[in-house]
C-alpha cells in the first residue's frame, strides 16, 4: 500500500495571498493544520496532464472547516520524501 508523510509544507507568499482571496478565504495556518496535524486527513495522488503529480489532502480544520489542498512534491525524484509545496487550497462554503 502506498504511503506518504507530509512532514514539511512550503508556502510561497503568492499562494498565501491567493488562498486568502478565495471565497471563502483560507489561511496558510488552516492548511497546515490539516496537512500536518489532523488525525482525520485523507490523501490521494493525482497525476494531472497539465499540472503534473500532485498530492491532494482533504480534511477539516480544528474549527471544523472542510478544506482540500493541492501539494506539489518538492523532490520529484522521490515524491514521498515528505517535503511539499502548497499549490492551492479551497474551503467548502458554509451551508
Amino acid at each position, binding site marked *: *500500500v*502506498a*504511503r*506518504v*508523510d*507530509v*512532514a514539511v509544507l*512550503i508556502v*510561497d*507568499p*503568492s*499562494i498565501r*495571498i*491567493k488562498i486568502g482571496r478565495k471565497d471563502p478565504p483560507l*489561511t496558510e*495556518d*488552516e492548511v*497546515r*493544520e490539516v496537512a*500536518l*496535524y*489532523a*488525525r482525520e*486527513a*485523507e*490523501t*490521494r*495522488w*493525482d*497525476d494531472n496532464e*497539465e*499540472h503534473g503529480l500532485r*498530492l*491532494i*489532502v*482533504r480534511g477539516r*480544520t*480544528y*474549527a471544523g472547516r472542510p478544506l*482540500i489542498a*493541492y501539494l*506539489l512534491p*518538492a*523532490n*520529484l525524484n522521490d515524491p514521498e520524501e*515528505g*517535503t511539499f*509545496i*502548497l*499549490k*492551492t487550497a*479551497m*474551503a*467548502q*462554503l458554509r451551508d
Partner: protein
Amino acid sequence: MGIMQLMNDVAGHADDEDDLTWDEAVAVFEAAQPVDLVRSHRQILVIIRYADDRFTATSPELTGFEVSGPTLAETRRLAREAVTAYVDPAVEILECLPQSPTGTAGASRVFICDHASVFRTSSQSGSGTAFVSSHRPRRMPA
C-alpha cells in the same frame, strides 16, 4: 527540477491554475489514487496563560483553539482532551505553562514562556510528562 525552480514555477502561476469550485475539487479528489497518510513524529505547542482568575490554553498551530478552566490542572486536562481528539497520534503535545498565579486576586496577569515550563505529552497516551526545564517564564508587561 530543483526546489527553487519549483517554487518560482508555483509563484509564477499562482493566479492562473486550479480555480476549482468545491464540488470540482471533491470530484478530482475522488478520482485520484488513494494513498495512506502516515505521520512522522512532530510537535504542537499549547500555551496556557493566566488572567482574571482563569487559565486559558491556546495553540499557535490550531486556529480557533481556546479552552479555559478555573485551575491549571483542569485547563491542562481540557486542552489535552481537545487537542488529542483532533491531532494525529504521532503528534507530541508540548505544554507551555504559566508561573504559579499568586498576587492580587482579580489582577490581570499574562505570562509567556521562552523555554519555560514545558511539559511533553503524547497525544497517543494522553498522559505523561517528561521534563520541566530550569528556565523561568518571562512575565509580559500589562
